[in-house]
C-alpha cells in the first residue's frame, strides 16, 4: 500500500513541484510546533505563578536588553512569546480544523440530500445557500459573533454557519450528475434503500473536489478567526489564539514594542501560506481538466 503510494503519479508530481514541497515542509514544522510545542517550552504562559512581571516587554534575545531565555521576547505580563505563540497556534489550528470538519459534514450531508431528492428540499437548501452567498463570510461571522458573544464554541458555530455553503453547492452539483449514472440506477433496481445508495455509492464519488475546498478552508477559517479575535468578538482572553495575541500587541505597537504583534502574525502567515501552497498543488493534481 505504502509502496504503491510512493510510486504513484501524485508523489512523482509532488517531488517535481518546489512550492508543494515548501508548503508540505511548512505544514510539517507547524504541525510539530502545534502538537509538541506546548510540551517543549519551559513556561506555561497561562499559569500566573510561572510569570514574572519583572520580565515584561523584554525584546527578542538578539537585541539590546534581550534575555536569552526568551528567544522572541516577552509581552506585558512577562509571558514568553515563544510559549504564547505555540499555545495560540494550537488554539487557532484546532478552531480551523474542527470548524472545517463541522462545515464539511453538514454541507456535504445537505448537498447530498438536495442533489439526490431534488424538489422542494433542494429548492429550500439552495435558496438559503444563495442568500448566504450574497454576503461576505467575514460579515456573517462578525454578525453572528456580535449576537452570541465570545467563546471558542461560538466561533465554531459561526465558522460552520459560514462555511457549509460551499460544500453543499459542490456536492449537490456532483450528486446531480451521479444519480443519472448507471451504477446508481443499478443500485436502485437491486432494491437498496436511498440512505444506503447515498452513503455507500454516491458519497465516495463526490468526495474528491472537497479535498481542495477543505484544505484551503482551514486557512480561511484561521484568518477569519484571527480577525474576529482581533476585533474582540472571537475567543475569550483566557484562551488567546494568534489573533488575540496580535490584538494585545497592537495596544502597545505605538510604544515601539513591535515583537509582541510581529511574531504571532508571522506564525499565522506561515500556517496559512503552507496550507495555500499545498491547496494549489492539490487543485492542479485533482482537477485533470486543468492539465
Amino acid at each position, binding site marked *: 500500500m505504502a509502496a504503491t503510494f510512493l510510486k504513484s503519479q501524485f508523489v512523482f508530481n509532488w517531488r517535481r513541484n518546489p512550492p508543494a514541497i515548501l508548503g508540505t515542509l511548512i505544514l510539517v514544522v507547524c504541525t510539530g510546533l502545534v502538537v509538541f510545542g506546548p510540551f517543549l517550552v519551559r513556561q506555561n504562559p497561562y499559569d500566573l505563578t510561572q510569570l514574572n512581571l519583572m520580565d515584561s516587554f523584554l525584546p527578542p534575545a538578539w537585541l539590546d536588553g534581550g534575555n536569552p531565555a526568551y528567544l522572541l521576547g516577552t509581552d506585558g505580563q512577562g509571558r514568553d512569546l515563544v510559549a504564547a505563540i505555540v499555545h495560540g497556534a494550537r488554539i487557532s489550528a484546532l478552531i480551523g480544523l474542527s470548524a472545517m470538519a463541522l462545515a464539511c459534514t453538514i454541507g456535504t450531508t445537505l448537498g447530498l440530500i438536495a442533489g439526490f431528492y431534488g424538489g422542494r428540499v433542494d429548492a429550500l437548501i439552495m435558496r438559503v445557500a444563495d442568500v448566504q452567498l450574497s454576503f*461576505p463570510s467575514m460579515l456573517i461571522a462578525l454578525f453572528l459573533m456580535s*449576537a452570541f458573544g465570545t467563546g471558542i464554541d461560538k466561533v465554531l458555530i459561526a465558522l460552520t454557519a459560514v462555511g457549509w455553503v460551499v460544500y453543499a453547492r459542490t456536492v449537490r452539483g456532483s450528486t446531480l450528475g451521479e444519480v443519472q449514472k448507471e451504477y446508481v440506477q443499478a443500485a436502485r433496481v437491486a432494491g437498496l434503500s436511498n440512505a444506503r445508495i447515498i452513503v455507500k455509492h454516491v458519497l465516495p464519488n463526490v468526495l474528491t473536489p472537497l479535498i481542495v475546498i477543505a484544505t484551503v478552508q482551514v486557512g480561511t477559517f484561521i484568518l477569519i478567526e*484571527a480577525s474576529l479575535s482581533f476585533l474582540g468578538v472571537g475567543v475569550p482572553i483566557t484562551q488567546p489564539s494568534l489573533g488575540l495575541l496580535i490584538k494585545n500587541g497592537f495596544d502597545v505597537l505605538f510604544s515601539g514594542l513591535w515583537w509582541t504583534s510581529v511574531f504571532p502574525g508571522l506564525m499565522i502567515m506561515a500556517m*496559512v501560506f503552507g496550507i495555500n501552497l499545498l491547496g494549489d498543488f492539490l487543485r492542479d493534481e485533482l482537477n485533470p481538466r486543468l492539465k
Partner: protein
Amino acid sequence: MFAYTVKRLFQMLFVLWAVSVLVFLMMSFTGDPVYMVVRIDATDAEVENARRILGLDRSLPEQYWFFLTNLMQGEFGNSYVFRQPALDLIVERLPATLEIVLVAMAIAAIVAIPLGVFAGANPGHPVSRFIMSGSLLGISLPGFWVGMMLIYVLAVELRLFPSSGRGETLEFLGIRTSLLTANGWHHILLPAITLSFGTTAIILRITRAGMMEVMRQDYIRFARAKGASRRGVLYGHGLRNGMIPVVTIFGLQLGDLIAFATITETIFAWPGMGKLLIDSIYRADRPVIVVYLMLVALIFVVVNFVVDLLYTMIDPRITVK
C-alpha cells in the same frame, strides 16, 4: 430581458426580507436593550415604562410587524448611545467608508490587472512564478496585521504617513470627501493599501486564470498568424475576453471590501460606518447595528444585480433565462 429583470427584482426583495427576519430574530434573542436606555438605578416601574415605550412588551410577531413597517418608512429608531436617529449616524459615515473602499478597489485594479495579464500570458516566466507566489502570500496574510505593520514601519518609525484618522475634507455635491485635499490623500493611502491587499491577490489570480484560458483559444493563434503585434494580441484580443470573470469578481469583492473595512477602520481609527458598527457591537447599540446590516444587505443585493446585468452586456454569448 425584461422578465429576467423583474424576476431578479423580486428575488432582491425576498433576500432583503429574509435578512430583515434574521436580523430581527438575532436581535430579539440577544440581551435586553431596556437596560441600555434606563438609568442604572432605575426602579421597576421605570424599566416597565421604558419597555412599553420601546414596544418590547408585545409579542414577537407584533414586534416584527412594527420593525418591518418602521423599516419600510426608513424609521430605524434612535441610537441608545448617541440619542440621534441611527440612520443619520450611518449615512453620515457612509462616504468615509465608500472612500477607502473605492481607493482600495482602484489600487487593486491598477496593481493586479497588469501583473495578472503578464503572468497569464507568460506562464513559465520566472517573473510570473514570483508574481504568483507573491499573490499566494497576499492571500495568506491577515489583513489587519499588514495594516499594523504598515503603521509601525511607515507611520511610527519613518513618520512618512499619519497613523490614524481621516484628513481634511471638502464638500462636493453635498458629500464630504477627503479625496479632494492633499492632506486627505495623505491620510487615506495607508488604510486603502491595507484594505486592498486581499483583493489585489484575488483579482490578480482571476486575471491570470482568465488570460491563460483565453490565450489557448484559436482566435489568438489566428491573430498571431495574421501578423498582429504581440501587444495588440495581448490587449486587443486577449484582455477583452479575459476580463469577463474579472468584472464579476470586482462586484463580489466590493462586498468583501465593505466587510473588511470594519477591521481596517478600527485599526486606523477611520471614522467610517465599519468602525461605528464595531463600536456599536461593544455598546450593544441595537438600532445602529440593525441599520448597518440592512444598509449593507441593500448594497450587496443591488451590486449583485448590477453585476449580473453587466455580465450579459459584456459577454453577448451569455443569455439570461
